[in-house]
Protein backbone atom coordinates (compact mmCIF):
# COMPACT_ATOMS: atom_id res chain seq x y z
CA UNK A 1 0.00 0.00 0.00
CA UNK A 2 1.43 3.32 -1.04
CA UNK A 3 1.78 6.32 1.21
CA UNK A 4 -1.03 8.17 -0.56
CA UNK A 5 -3.45 5.39 0.06
CA UNK A 6 -2.58 5.25 3.76
CA UNK A 7 -3.23 8.94 4.09
CA UNK A 8 -6.49 8.54 2.23
CA UNK A 9 -7.57 5.61 4.33
CA UNK A 10 -6.66 7.38 7.58
CA UNK A 11 -8.58 10.48 6.54
CA UNK A 12 -11.81 8.63 6.10
CA UNK A 13 -11.36 6.11 8.89
CA UNK A 14 -14.47 5.62 10.95
CA UNK A 15 -16.78 7.09 8.34
CA UNK A 16 -18.85 5.27 5.74
CA UNK A 17 -16.37 3.08 4.00
CA UNK A 18 -17.30 3.99 0.45
CA UNK A 19 -13.70 4.21 -0.57
CA UNK A 20 -12.90 0.69 0.46
CA UNK A 21 -16.00 -0.66 -1.26
CA UNK A 22 -15.16 1.36 -4.37
CA UNK A 23 -11.63 0.06 -4.42
CA UNK A 24 -12.96 -3.46 -4.06
CA UNK A 25 -15.40 -3.05 -6.94
CA UNK A 26 -12.87 -1.55 -9.33
CA UNK A 27 -10.32 -4.17 -8.34
CA UNK A 28 -12.89 -6.85 -9.10
CA UNK A 29 -13.40 -5.51 -12.60
CA UNK A 30 -9.68 -5.08 -13.17
CA UNK A 31 -9.06 -8.65 -12.06
CA UNK A 32 -11.42 -10.00 -14.73
CA UNK A 33 -8.59 -9.43 -17.21
CA UNK A 34 -6.37 -11.88 -15.37
CA UNK A 35 -9.35 -14.15 -14.80
CA UNK A 36 -10.10 -14.26 -18.55
CA UNK A 37 -6.51 -15.23 -19.35
CA UNK A 38 -6.57 -17.97 -16.71
CA UNK A 39 -9.99 -19.21 -17.83
CA UNK A 40 -8.74 -19.30 -21.41
CA UNK A 41 -5.75 -21.44 -20.61
CA UNK A 42 -7.50 -23.67 -18.07
CA UNK A 43 -10.74 -24.10 -20.05
CA UNK A 44 -8.93 -25.03 -23.22
CA UNK A 45 -6.54 -27.36 -21.40
CA UNK A 46 -9.47 -29.24 -19.87
CA UNK A 47 -11.19 -29.56 -23.25
CA UNK A 48 -7.96 -30.65 -24.92
CA UNK A 49 -7.22 -33.29 -22.31
CA UNK A 50 -8.84 -36.26 -24.11
CA UNK A 51 -6.75 -35.61 -27.23
CA UNK A 52 -3.60 -35.10 -25.16
CA UNK A 53 -4.12 -38.40 -23.33
CA UNK A 54 -4.94 -40.28 -26.50
CA UNK A 55 -2.10 -39.08 -28.71
CA UNK A 56 0.58 -37.63 -26.42
CA UNK A 57 3.51 -36.16 -28.33
CA UNK A 58 2.41 -37.93 -31.50
CA UNK A 59 -0.18 -35.17 -31.81
CA UNK A 60 2.47 -32.65 -32.81
CA UNK A 61 4.64 -35.06 -34.80
CA UNK A 62 1.94 -36.97 -36.66
CA UNK A 63 0.57 -35.75 -39.96
CA UNK A 64 -2.48 -37.95 -40.33
CA UNK A 65 -5.74 -36.04 -39.81
CA UNK A 66 -8.82 -38.18 -40.22
CA UNK A 67 -11.98 -37.34 -38.31
CA UNK A 68 -13.74 -40.52 -39.43
CA UNK A 69 -10.96 -42.85 -38.29
CA UNK A 70 -10.40 -40.77 -35.17
CA UNK A 71 -6.73 -40.26 -35.92
CA UNK A 72 -5.33 -36.79 -35.37
CA UNK A 73 -1.84 -35.42 -36.03
CA UNK A 74 -1.39 -31.66 -36.20
CA UNK A 75 2.00 -31.35 -37.90
CA UNK A 76 0.69 -30.08 -41.29
CA UNK A 77 -1.16 -27.26 -39.52
CA UNK A 78 1.83 -26.31 -37.36
CA UNK A 79 4.03 -26.42 -40.45
CA UNK A 80 1.60 -24.30 -42.44
CA UNK A 81 1.31 -21.70 -39.69
CA UNK A 82 5.04 -21.43 -39.12
CA UNK A 83 6.02 -21.32 -42.79
CA UNK A 84 3.34 -18.82 -43.82
CA UNK A 85 3.99 -16.45 -40.89
CA UNK A 86 7.78 -16.73 -41.07
CA UNK A 87 8.00 -16.01 -44.80
CA UNK A 88 5.42 -13.23 -44.55
CA UNK A 89 7.33 -11.57 -41.73
CA UNK A 90 10.66 -11.88 -43.54
CA UNK A 91 9.18 -10.16 -46.59
CA UNK A 92 7.17 -7.60 -44.62
CA UNK A 93 9.91 -6.38 -42.29
CA UNK A 94 12.17 -4.51 -44.76
CA UNK A 95 9.14 -3.01 -46.50
CA UNK A 96 7.61 -1.83 -43.21
CA UNK A 97 10.84 -0.43 -41.81
CA UNK A 98 11.57 1.27 -45.13
CA UNK A 99 8.12 2.85 -45.14
CA UNK A 100 8.46 3.95 -41.51
CA UNK A 101 11.83 5.58 -42.29
CA UNK A 102 10.32 7.25 -45.35
CA UNK A 103 7.46 8.62 -43.23
CA UNK A 104 9.58 9.86 -40.34
CA UNK A 105 12.86 10.94 -41.94
CA UNK A 106 12.46 11.55 -45.66
CA UNK A 107 8.98 12.68 -46.60
CA UNK A 108 7.85 16.26 -46.07
CA UNK A 109 5.91 16.42 -42.81
CA UNK A 110 2.50 16.69 -44.48
CA UNK A 111 3.08 13.84 -46.95
CA UNK A 112 4.48 11.64 -44.18
CA UNK A 113 1.45 12.37 -42.03
CA UNK A 114 -0.91 11.57 -44.90
CA UNK A 115 0.82 8.25 -45.63
CA UNK A 116 0.86 7.36 -41.96
CA UNK A 117 -2.86 7.95 -41.50
CA UNK A 118 -3.64 6.09 -44.74
CA UNK A 119 -1.66 3.10 -43.49
CA UNK A 120 -3.45 3.26 -40.14
CA UNK A 121 -6.84 3.51 -41.82
CA UNK A 122 -6.11 0.43 -43.92
CA UNK A 123 -4.91 -1.49 -40.87
CA UNK A 124 -8.50 -1.24 -39.61
CA UNK A 125 -10.02 -3.10 -42.57
CA UNK A 126 -11.25 -6.44 -41.20
CA UNK A 127 -9.58 -9.71 -42.04
CA UNK A 128 -12.66 -11.11 -43.75
CA UNK A 129 -12.60 -8.27 -46.30
CA UNK A 130 -8.94 -8.89 -47.12
CA UNK A 131 -10.00 -12.51 -47.53
CA UNK A 132 -12.77 -11.56 -49.94
CA UNK A 133 -10.33 -9.49 -51.97
CA UNK A 134 -7.80 -12.29 -51.79
CA UNK A 135 -10.11 -14.96 -53.08
CA UNK A 136 -11.91 -12.91 -55.75
CA UNK A 137 -9.12 -10.65 -57.02
CA UNK A 138 -5.68 -11.77 -55.83
CA UNK A 139 -5.90 -15.56 -56.23
CA UNK A 140 -7.01 -15.43 -59.91
CA UNK A 141 -4.23 -12.91 -60.60
CA UNK A 142 -1.67 -15.21 -58.97
CA UNK A 143 -3.00 -18.18 -60.91
CA UNK A 144 -2.97 -16.46 -64.31
CA UNK A 145 0.01 -14.12 -64.08
CA UNK A 146 2.42 -14.62 -61.19
CA UNK A 147 2.51 -18.39 -60.78
CA UNK A 148 2.94 -19.29 -64.48
CA UNK A 149 5.83 -16.79 -64.56
CA UNK A 150 7.42 -18.37 -61.47
CA UNK A 151 6.99 -21.87 -62.88
CA UNK A 152 8.50 -20.88 -66.22
CA UNK A 153 11.56 -19.12 -64.86
CA UNK A 154 12.11 -20.68 -61.44
CA UNK A 155 10.39 -24.03 -61.94
CA UNK A 156 13.69 -25.84 -61.34
CA UNK A 157 13.50 -24.81 -57.68
CA UNK A 158 11.45 -27.11 -55.44
CA UNK A 159 9.77 -23.94 -54.14
CA UNK A 160 7.83 -23.43 -57.37
CA UNK A 161 6.84 -26.93 -58.45
CA UNK A 162 3.40 -28.03 -59.41
CA UNK A 163 0.39 -26.56 -61.16
CA UNK A 164 -0.72 -22.96 -60.49
CA UNK A 165 -3.76 -23.24 -58.21
CA UNK A 166 -3.98 -19.58 -57.28
CA UNK A 167 -5.00 -20.42 -53.73
CA UNK A 168 -2.19 -21.90 -51.65
CA UNK A 169 0.81 -21.05 -49.51
CA UNK A 170 1.96 -18.18 -51.75
CA UNK A 171 -1.45 -16.52 -51.61
CA UNK A 172 -1.51 -16.88 -47.81
CA UNK A 173 1.95 -15.32 -47.50
CA UNK A 174 0.88 -12.39 -49.70
CA UNK A 175 -2.32 -11.74 -47.78
CA UNK A 176 -0.60 -12.01 -44.37
CA UNK A 177 2.07 -9.58 -45.59
CA UNK A 178 -0.51 -7.05 -46.72
CA UNK A 179 -2.24 -7.31 -43.35
CA UNK A 180 0.75 -7.08 -41.01
CA UNK A 181 2.68 -4.37 -42.86
CA UNK A 182 0.44 -1.57 -41.51
CA UNK A 183 0.90 -2.80 -37.93
CA UNK A 184 4.68 -3.12 -38.11
CA UNK A 185 4.92 0.20 -39.96
CA UNK A 186 2.94 2.20 -37.43
CA UNK A 187 4.74 0.80 -34.37
CA UNK A 188 8.14 1.26 -36.06
CA UNK A 189 7.13 4.83 -36.87
CA UNK A 190 6.43 5.50 -33.18
CA UNK A 191 9.75 3.94 -32.22
CA UNK A 192 11.67 6.05 -34.75
CA UNK A 193 9.95 9.23 -33.59
CA UNK A 194 11.22 8.47 -30.10
CA UNK A 195 14.85 8.75 -31.23
CA UNK A 196 16.22 11.92 -29.60
CA UNK A 197 16.87 14.77 -32.02
CA UNK A 198 20.29 15.33 -30.42
CA UNK A 199 21.48 11.88 -31.55
CA UNK A 200 20.60 12.65 -35.14
CA UNK A 201 22.12 16.11 -35.00
CA UNK A 202 25.33 14.66 -33.60
CA UNK A 203 25.59 12.27 -36.56
CA UNK A 204 24.92 15.04 -39.08
CA UNK A 205 27.42 17.32 -37.34
CA UNK A 206 30.07 14.64 -37.84
CA UNK A 207 29.44 14.84 -41.58
CA UNK A 208 27.15 11.86 -42.00
CA UNK A 209 24.90 11.67 -45.05
CA UNK A 210 21.20 11.19 -44.39
CA UNK A 211 21.45 7.43 -44.84
CA UNK A 212 24.49 7.23 -42.57
CA UNK A 213 22.60 9.20 -39.96
CA UNK A 214 19.71 6.73 -40.21
CA UNK A 215 22.01 3.72 -40.10
CA UNK A 216 24.26 4.94 -37.30
CA UNK A 217 21.98 7.03 -35.10
CA UNK A 218 18.34 6.20 -35.77
CA UNK A 219 18.25 2.44 -36.36
CA UNK A 220 20.57 1.35 -33.53
CA UNK A 221 18.61 3.47 -31.06
CA UNK A 222 15.30 1.98 -32.11
CA UNK A 223 16.57 -1.56 -32.68
CA UNK A 224 14.85 -3.33 -29.82
CA UNK A 225 11.66 -1.38 -30.43
CA UNK A 226 11.64 -2.35 -34.10
CA UNK A 227 12.32 -5.94 -33.11
CA UNK A 228 9.33 -5.69 -30.75
CA UNK A 229 7.17 -4.38 -33.60
CA UNK A 230 8.24 -7.26 -35.83
CA UNK A 231 7.55 -9.85 -33.15
CA UNK A 232 4.15 -8.28 -32.51
CA UNK A 233 3.50 -8.57 -36.25
CA UNK A 234 4.52 -12.22 -36.02
CA UNK A 235 1.92 -12.71 -33.30
CA UNK A 236 -0.71 -11.23 -35.61
CA UNK A 237 0.47 -13.31 -38.53
CA UNK A 238 0.31 -16.60 -36.70
CA UNK A 239 -3.17 -15.90 -35.33
CA UNK A 240 -4.52 -14.52 -38.59
CA UNK A 241 -7.59 -16.58 -39.36
CA UNK A 242 -10.23 -15.47 -41.83
CA UNK A 243 -8.18 -14.10 -44.72
CA UNK A 244 -5.77 -17.04 -44.58
CA UNK A 245 -8.60 -19.56 -44.41
CA UNK A 246 -10.06 -18.06 -47.56
CA UNK A 247 -6.89 -18.17 -49.68
CA UNK A 248 -4.63 -20.99 -48.42
CA UNK A 249 -6.57 -23.83 -50.05
CA UNK A 250 -7.18 -25.76 -46.82
CA UNK A 251 -5.30 -28.96 -47.60
CA UNK A 252 -3.38 -30.56 -44.72
CA UNK A 253 -0.11 -31.44 -46.42
CA UNK A 254 3.55 -30.67 -45.93
CA UNK A 255 4.95 -29.51 -49.24
CA UNK A 256 8.06 -27.55 -50.09
CA UNK A 257 6.32 -25.88 -53.00
CA UNK A 258 4.84 -22.48 -52.26
CA UNK A 259 2.31 -23.03 -55.02
CA UNK A 260 0.65 -25.97 -53.26
CA UNK A 261 -2.39 -25.53 -51.05
CA UNK A 262 -1.68 -25.79 -47.33
CA UNK A 263 -3.48 -25.33 -44.01
CA UNK A 264 -2.86 -23.41 -40.78
CA UNK A 265 -3.80 -23.92 -37.14
CA UNK A 266 -6.40 -21.12 -36.94
CA UNK A 267 -7.86 -22.15 -40.29
CA UNK A 268 -8.55 -25.74 -39.31
CA UNK A 269 -10.26 -24.53 -36.13
CA UNK A 270 -12.34 -22.06 -38.15
CA UNK A 271 -13.35 -24.68 -40.72
CA UNK A 272 -13.96 -27.74 -38.59
CA UNK A 273 -14.87 -26.74 -35.05
CA UNK A 274 -18.55 -25.92 -35.58
CA UNK A 275 -19.05 -29.23 -37.41
CA UNK A 276 -16.91 -31.47 -35.22
CA UNK A 277 -19.20 -34.30 -34.23
CA UNK A 278 -17.01 -36.61 -32.17
CA UNK A 279 -15.69 -35.61 -28.76
CA UNK A 280 -12.18 -36.55 -29.85
CA UNK A 281 -12.34 -34.34 -32.94
CA UNK A 282 -13.31 -31.20 -31.02
CA UNK A 283 -10.77 -32.08 -28.35
CA UNK A 284 -8.05 -32.32 -31.00
CA UNK A 285 -9.08 -28.92 -32.37
CA UNK A 286 -8.96 -27.52 -28.82
CA UNK A 287 -5.43 -28.85 -28.46
CA UNK A 288 -4.47 -27.03 -31.66
CA UNK A 289 -6.04 -23.93 -30.13
CA UNK A 290 -3.98 -24.47 -26.99
CA UNK A 291 -0.74 -24.74 -28.99
CA UNK A 292 -1.72 -21.55 -30.84
CA UNK A 293 -2.46 -19.78 -27.55
CA UNK A 294 0.88 -20.85 -26.07
CA UNK A 295 2.74 -19.63 -29.17
CA UNK A 296 0.99 -16.26 -29.24
CA UNK A 297 1.49 -15.75 -25.50
CA UNK A 298 5.23 -16.36 -25.81
CA UNK A 299 5.43 -14.09 -28.87
CA UNK A 300 3.37 -11.30 -27.31
CA UNK A 301 5.15 -11.31 -23.97
CA UNK A 302 8.52 -11.09 -25.75
CA UNK A 303 7.30 -8.23 -27.94
CA UNK A 304 5.79 -6.29 -25.01
CA UNK A 305 8.95 -6.58 -22.97
CA UNK A 306 11.03 -5.31 -25.90
CA UNK A 307 8.70 -2.39 -26.64
CA UNK A 308 8.50 -1.50 -22.93
CA UNK A 309 12.25 -1.39 -22.68
CA UNK A 310 12.34 1.23 -25.45
CA UNK A 311 9.49 3.25 -23.98
CA UNK A 312 11.28 3.51 -20.63
CA UNK A 313 14.47 4.57 -22.42
CA UNK A 314 12.45 7.13 -24.32
CA UNK A 315 11.18 8.84 -21.16
CA UNK A 316 14.78 9.25 -20.08
CA UNK A 317 15.96 10.46 -23.48
CA UNK A 318 13.19 12.91 -24.27
CA UNK A 319 11.00 13.23 -27.34
CA UNK A 320 11.52 15.30 -30.41
Amino acid at each position, binding site marked *: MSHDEEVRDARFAGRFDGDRIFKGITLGFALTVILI*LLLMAAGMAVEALPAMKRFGWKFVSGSDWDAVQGSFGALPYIWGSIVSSALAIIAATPLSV*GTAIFITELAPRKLGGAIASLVELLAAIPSVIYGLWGVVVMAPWLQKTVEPFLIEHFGFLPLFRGPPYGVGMLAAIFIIMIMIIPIITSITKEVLLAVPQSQKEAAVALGATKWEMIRMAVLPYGRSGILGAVILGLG*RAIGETMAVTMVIGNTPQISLSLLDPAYTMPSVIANEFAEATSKLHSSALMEIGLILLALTLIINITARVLIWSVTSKQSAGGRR
Partner: protein
Amino acid sequence: MNGMRTRSIKNVGMMLLMGIATLLVLTPLILVFYQIVKMGAGSINLAFFTQIPNPPGETGGGMANGIAGSAILILMASIFGVPTGIFGALYLSEYEGNRLASVIRFSADVLSGVPSIITGLVAYTLIVVPMHGFSALAGAFALGLIMIPIVLRTTEEQLKMVPVTLREASLALGVPFWRTTLLVTLRSGMKGIVTGILLSIARVAGETAPLLFTSLGNQFWSKKLTEPMAALPLQIFSFAIAPYDDWHRLAWGGALVLVVIMFVVSLAARWFGREKSTG
Protein backbone atom coordinates in the same frame (compact mmCIF):
# COMPACT_ATOMS: atom_id res chain seq x y z
CA MET B 1 37.28 13.74 -49.82
CA ASN B 2 37.96 10.04 -49.90
CA GLY B 3 34.88 7.98 -50.70
CA MET B 4 32.53 10.95 -50.61
CA ARG B 5 31.25 10.01 -54.01
CA THR B 6 30.43 6.40 -53.12
CA ARG B 7 28.87 7.61 -49.88
CA SER B 8 26.55 9.99 -51.62
CA ILE B 9 25.66 7.43 -54.28
CA LYS B 10 24.84 4.99 -51.51
CA ASN B 11 22.81 7.70 -49.82
CA VAL B 12 20.72 8.40 -52.90
CA GLY B 13 20.33 4.67 -53.56
CA MET B 14 19.03 3.99 -50.07
CA MET B 15 16.65 6.95 -50.23
CA LEU B 16 15.27 5.52 -53.48
CA LEU B 17 14.85 2.10 -51.86
CA MET B 18 12.83 3.63 -49.00
CA GLY B 19 10.60 5.37 -51.52
CA ILE B 20 10.11 2.14 -53.48
CA ALA B 21 9.29 0.27 -50.27
CA THR B 22 6.65 2.86 -49.46
CA LEU B 23 5.13 2.53 -52.93
CA LEU B 24 5.12 -1.27 -52.67
CA VAL B 25 3.38 -1.04 -49.32
CA LEU B 26 0.75 1.45 -50.45
CA THR B 27 -0.14 -0.18 -53.79
CA PRO B 28 -1.97 -3.31 -52.57
CA LEU B 29 -3.56 -1.42 -49.71
CA ILE B 30 -4.98 1.21 -52.04
CA LEU B 31 -5.99 -1.51 -54.49
CA VAL B 32 -8.00 -3.33 -51.80
CA PHE B 33 -9.71 -0.11 -50.84
CA TYR B 34 -10.46 0.82 -54.46
CA GLN B 35 -11.94 -2.57 -55.22
CA ILE B 36 -14.18 -2.54 -52.15
CA VAL B 37 -15.61 0.80 -53.24
CA LYS B 38 -15.93 -0.13 -56.89
CA MET B 39 -17.43 -3.61 -56.46
CA GLY B 40 -19.44 -2.64 -53.40
CA ALA B 41 -21.07 0.44 -54.86
CA GLY B 42 -22.55 -1.64 -57.68
CA SER B 43 -24.20 -4.05 -55.24
CA ILE B 44 -25.87 -1.63 -52.92
CA ASN B 45 -29.53 -0.84 -53.39
CA LEU B 46 -32.58 -0.53 -51.19
CA ALA B 47 -33.16 -4.29 -51.14
CA PHE B 48 -29.67 -4.74 -49.71
CA PHE B 49 -30.80 -3.02 -46.51
CA THR B 50 -34.34 -4.38 -46.31
CA GLN B 51 -34.21 -8.02 -47.43
CA ILE B 52 -32.58 -11.17 -46.18
CA PRO B 53 -30.38 -13.28 -48.51
CA ASN B 54 -32.16 -15.24 -51.21
CA PRO B 55 -31.49 -18.96 -51.66
CA PRO B 56 -28.64 -19.74 -54.09
CA GLY B 57 -29.63 -19.37 -57.72
CA GLU B 58 -32.14 -16.59 -57.13
CA THR B 59 -30.87 -13.08 -57.73
CA GLY B 60 -31.51 -10.13 -55.49
CA GLY B 61 -31.86 -10.25 -51.75
CA GLY B 62 -29.94 -8.31 -49.15
CA MET B 63 -28.14 -8.49 -45.87
CA ALA B 64 -30.66 -6.81 -43.59
CA ASN B 65 -30.52 -9.61 -41.02
CA GLY B 66 -26.72 -9.48 -40.95
CA ILE B 67 -26.61 -5.72 -40.42
CA ALA B 68 -29.22 -5.89 -37.67
CA GLY B 69 -27.51 -8.93 -36.13
CA SER B 70 -24.15 -7.15 -36.03
CA ALA B 71 -25.78 -4.14 -34.35
CA ILE B 72 -27.40 -6.33 -31.70
CA LEU B 73 -24.24 -8.34 -31.06
CA ILE B 74 -22.13 -5.19 -30.70
CA LEU B 75 -24.70 -3.59 -28.39
CA MET B 76 -24.74 -6.65 -26.12
CA ALA B 77 -20.96 -6.92 -26.22
CA SER B 78 -20.68 -3.27 -25.19
CA ILE B 79 -23.09 -3.72 -22.28
CA PHE B 80 -20.74 -6.35 -20.93
CA GLY B 81 -17.36 -5.13 -22.13
CA VAL B 82 -17.51 -1.35 -21.65
CA PRO B 83 -18.31 -1.16 -17.91
CA THR B 84 -15.78 -3.90 -17.18
CA GLY B 85 -13.12 -1.99 -19.08
CA ILE B 86 -13.93 1.38 -17.51
CA PHE B 87 -14.13 0.18 -13.89
CA GLY B 88 -10.98 -1.85 -14.37
CA ALA B 89 -9.27 1.25 -15.73
CA LEU B 90 -10.38 3.24 -12.68
CA TYR B 91 -8.51 0.78 -10.51
CA LEU B 92 -5.39 0.96 -12.67
CA SER B 93 -5.27 4.75 -12.83
CA GLU B 94 -6.44 5.66 -9.32
CA TYR B 95 -4.56 2.99 -7.38
CA GLU B 96 -1.55 2.83 -9.64
CA GLY B 97 1.90 2.06 -8.47
CA ASN B 98 1.19 -1.28 -6.87
CA ARG B 99 2.46 -4.49 -8.30
CA LEU B 100 -0.96 -5.97 -8.95
CA ALA B 101 -1.84 -3.02 -11.21
CA SER B 102 1.15 -3.63 -13.45
CA VAL B 103 0.37 -7.34 -13.63
CA ILE B 104 -3.18 -6.45 -14.72
CA ARG B 105 -1.89 -3.91 -17.24
CA PHE B 106 0.49 -6.47 -18.69
CA SER B 107 -2.27 -9.10 -18.84
CA ALA B 108 -4.52 -6.67 -20.73
CA ASP B 109 -1.78 -6.06 -23.31
CA VAL B 110 -1.19 -9.78 -23.68
CA LEU B 111 -4.93 -10.46 -23.89
CA SER B 112 -5.34 -7.97 -26.73
CA GLY B 113 -2.75 -9.97 -28.70
CA VAL B 114 -4.56 -13.30 -28.34
CA PRO B 115 -5.98 -14.38 -31.73
CA SER B 116 -9.71 -13.72 -31.86
CA ILE B 117 -10.46 -17.28 -32.91
CA ILE B 118 -9.23 -18.39 -29.49
CA THR B 119 -11.66 -15.97 -27.87
CA GLY B 120 -14.32 -17.82 -29.86
CA LEU B 121 -13.14 -21.17 -28.50
CA VAL B 122 -13.33 -19.79 -24.96
CA ALA B 123 -16.85 -18.42 -25.49
CA TYR B 124 -17.78 -21.83 -26.90
CA THR B 125 -16.54 -23.63 -23.78
CA LEU B 126 -18.06 -21.15 -21.34
CA ILE B 127 -21.41 -20.36 -23.00
CA VAL B 128 -22.28 -22.66 -25.90
CA VAL B 129 -21.53 -25.94 -24.10
CA PRO B 130 -23.46 -25.16 -20.88
CA MET B 131 -26.39 -23.69 -22.86
CA HIS B 132 -26.45 -26.64 -25.29
CA GLY B 133 -26.49 -24.57 -28.46
CA PHE B 134 -25.05 -21.80 -30.54
CA SER B 135 -26.49 -18.44 -29.60
CA ALA B 136 -26.26 -14.69 -30.10
CA LEU B 137 -25.39 -14.45 -26.39
CA ALA B 138 -22.24 -16.52 -26.89
CA GLY B 139 -21.22 -14.36 -29.86
CA ALA B 140 -21.73 -11.16 -27.86
CA PHE B 141 -19.71 -12.62 -24.99
CA ALA B 142 -16.80 -13.37 -27.33
CA LEU B 143 -16.89 -9.83 -28.79
CA GLY B 144 -17.12 -8.37 -25.27
CA LEU B 145 -13.97 -10.25 -24.27
CA ILE B 146 -12.15 -8.59 -27.18
CA MET B 147 -13.44 -5.14 -26.18
CA ILE B 148 -12.34 -5.29 -22.53
CA PRO B 149 -8.57 -4.84 -22.94
CA ILE B 150 -9.04 -2.08 -25.56
CA VAL B 151 -11.48 -0.06 -23.43
CA LEU B 152 -9.38 -0.70 -20.32
CA ARG B 153 -6.12 0.60 -21.74
CA THR B 154 -7.53 3.63 -23.59
CA THR B 155 -9.62 4.65 -20.57
CA GLU B 156 -6.62 4.34 -18.29
CA GLU B 157 -4.59 6.61 -20.59
CA GLN B 158 -7.38 9.20 -20.51
CA LEU B 159 -7.82 9.08 -16.73
CA LYS B 160 -4.10 9.61 -16.24
CA MET B 161 -4.33 12.82 -18.27
CA VAL B 162 -6.89 14.32 -15.86
CA PRO B 163 -4.91 16.84 -13.76
CA VAL B 164 -4.25 15.87 -10.14
CA THR B 165 -5.28 19.37 -9.09
CA LEU B 166 -8.88 18.65 -10.17
CA ARG B 167 -8.97 15.64 -7.91
CA GLU B 168 -7.38 17.57 -5.07
CA ALA B 169 -9.88 20.40 -5.43
CA SER B 170 -12.71 17.95 -5.04
CA LEU B 171 -11.08 16.11 -2.13
CA ALA B 172 -10.39 19.45 -0.43
CA LEU B 173 -14.11 20.17 -0.50
CA GLY B 174 -14.58 17.04 1.54
CA VAL B 175 -15.92 14.88 -1.26
CA PRO B 176 -15.04 11.25 -0.56
CA PHE B 177 -12.41 9.74 -2.81
CA TRP B 178 -14.79 7.36 -4.54
CA ARG B 179 -17.26 10.13 -5.41
CA THR B 180 -14.40 12.30 -6.60
CA THR B 181 -13.31 9.52 -8.90
CA LEU B 182 -16.76 8.97 -10.35
CA LEU B 183 -17.96 12.58 -10.53
CA VAL B 184 -14.75 14.47 -11.24
CA THR B 185 -12.03 12.22 -12.62
CA LEU B 186 -14.22 9.96 -14.74
CA ARG B 187 -16.29 12.89 -16.00
CA SER B 188 -13.27 14.94 -17.00
CA GLY B 189 -11.87 12.07 -18.99
CA MET B 190 -15.24 11.23 -20.56
CA LYS B 191 -14.55 12.46 -24.09
CA GLY B 192 -11.38 10.43 -24.40
CA ILE B 193 -13.14 7.42 -22.95
CA VAL B 194 -15.89 7.69 -25.56
CA THR B 195 -13.13 7.71 -28.18
CA GLY B 196 -11.78 4.47 -26.75
CA ILE B 197 -15.21 2.87 -26.72
CA LEU B 198 -15.85 3.87 -30.34
CA LEU B 199 -12.47 2.48 -31.40
CA SER B 200 -13.21 -0.81 -29.67
CA ILE B 201 -16.58 -0.95 -31.46
CA ALA B 202 -14.90 -0.31 -34.80
CA ARG B 203 -12.51 -3.14 -34.01
CA VAL B 204 -15.10 -5.78 -33.09
CA ALA B 205 -17.55 -4.80 -35.85
CA GLY B 206 -15.38 -6.64 -38.39
CA GLU B 207 -14.52 -9.64 -36.21
CA THR B 208 -15.54 -12.89 -37.87
CA ALA B 209 -13.49 -15.69 -36.34
CA PRO B 210 -14.93 -15.44 -32.79
CA LEU B 211 -18.48 -15.67 -34.17
CA LEU B 212 -17.96 -18.82 -36.25
CA PHE B 213 -18.90 -21.24 -33.47
CA THR B 214 -20.70 -18.96 -31.07
CA SER B 215 -23.24 -16.86 -32.95
CA LEU B 216 -22.87 -19.25 -35.94
CA GLY B 217 -24.85 -17.16 -38.42
CA ASN B 218 -28.43 -17.44 -39.59
CA GLN B 219 -29.99 -17.30 -43.06
CA PHE B 220 -33.15 -15.82 -41.56
CA TRP B 221 -34.16 -13.35 -38.86
CA SER B 222 -33.39 -14.49 -35.33
CA LYS B 223 -36.25 -14.27 -32.88
CA LYS B 224 -34.39 -14.94 -29.64
CA LEU B 225 -30.97 -14.17 -28.24
CA THR B 226 -30.57 -17.85 -27.43
CA GLU B 227 -30.71 -18.70 -31.14
CA PRO B 228 -27.94 -18.46 -33.74
CA MET B 229 -27.80 -14.95 -35.16
CA ALA B 230 -26.58 -13.54 -38.47
CA ALA B 231 -23.74 -11.02 -38.50
CA LEU B 232 -22.42 -8.93 -41.36
CA PRO B 233 -18.83 -10.32 -41.30
CA LEU B 234 -20.12 -13.91 -41.10
CA GLN B 235 -22.31 -13.32 -44.14
CA ILE B 236 -19.43 -11.77 -46.08
CA PHE B 237 -17.36 -14.87 -45.26
CA SER B 238 -19.91 -17.47 -46.26
CA PHE B 239 -20.90 -15.58 -49.42
CA ALA B 240 -17.30 -14.96 -50.46
CA ILE B 241 -16.41 -18.65 -50.40
CA ALA B 242 -19.65 -19.72 -52.11
CA PRO B 243 -19.48 -20.40 -55.87
CA TYR B 244 -22.38 -18.08 -56.85
CA ASP B 245 -21.71 -14.75 -58.55
CA ASP B 246 -24.77 -13.18 -57.02
CA TRP B 247 -23.50 -14.10 -53.54
CA HIS B 248 -20.11 -12.61 -54.37
CA ARG B 249 -21.95 -9.45 -55.33
CA LEU B 250 -23.68 -9.40 -51.94
CA ALA B 251 -20.35 -10.05 -50.22
CA TRP B 252 -18.80 -6.96 -51.85
CA GLY B 253 -21.83 -4.91 -50.86
CA GLY B 254 -21.47 -6.17 -47.30
CA ALA B 255 -17.76 -5.36 -47.33
CA LEU B 256 -18.47 -1.78 -48.41
CA VAL B 257 -21.18 -1.31 -45.77
CA LEU B 258 -18.90 -2.75 -43.08
CA VAL B 259 -15.97 -0.55 -44.09
CA VAL B 260 -18.16 2.56 -44.24
CA ILE B 261 -19.61 1.82 -40.79
CA MET B 262 -16.13 1.26 -39.35
CA PHE B 263 -14.72 4.44 -40.93
CA VAL B 264 -17.64 6.51 -39.69
CA VAL B 265 -17.17 5.14 -36.18
CA SER B 266 -13.38 5.76 -36.33
CA LEU B 267 -13.92 9.28 -37.64
CA ALA B 268 -16.41 9.94 -34.84
CA ALA B 269 -13.79 8.63 -32.42
CA ARG B 270 -11.14 10.97 -33.83
CA TRP B 271 -13.57 13.85 -33.73
CA PHE B 272 -14.26 13.21 -30.04
CA GLY B 273 -10.55 12.95 -29.42
CA ARG B 274 -9.90 16.26 -31.16
CA GLU B 275 -12.58 18.06 -29.15
CA LYS B 276 -10.69 17.01 -26.08
CA SER B 277 -7.32 18.39 -27.10
CA THR B 278 -8.65 21.81 -28.12
CA GLY B 279 -11.05 22.18 -25.19
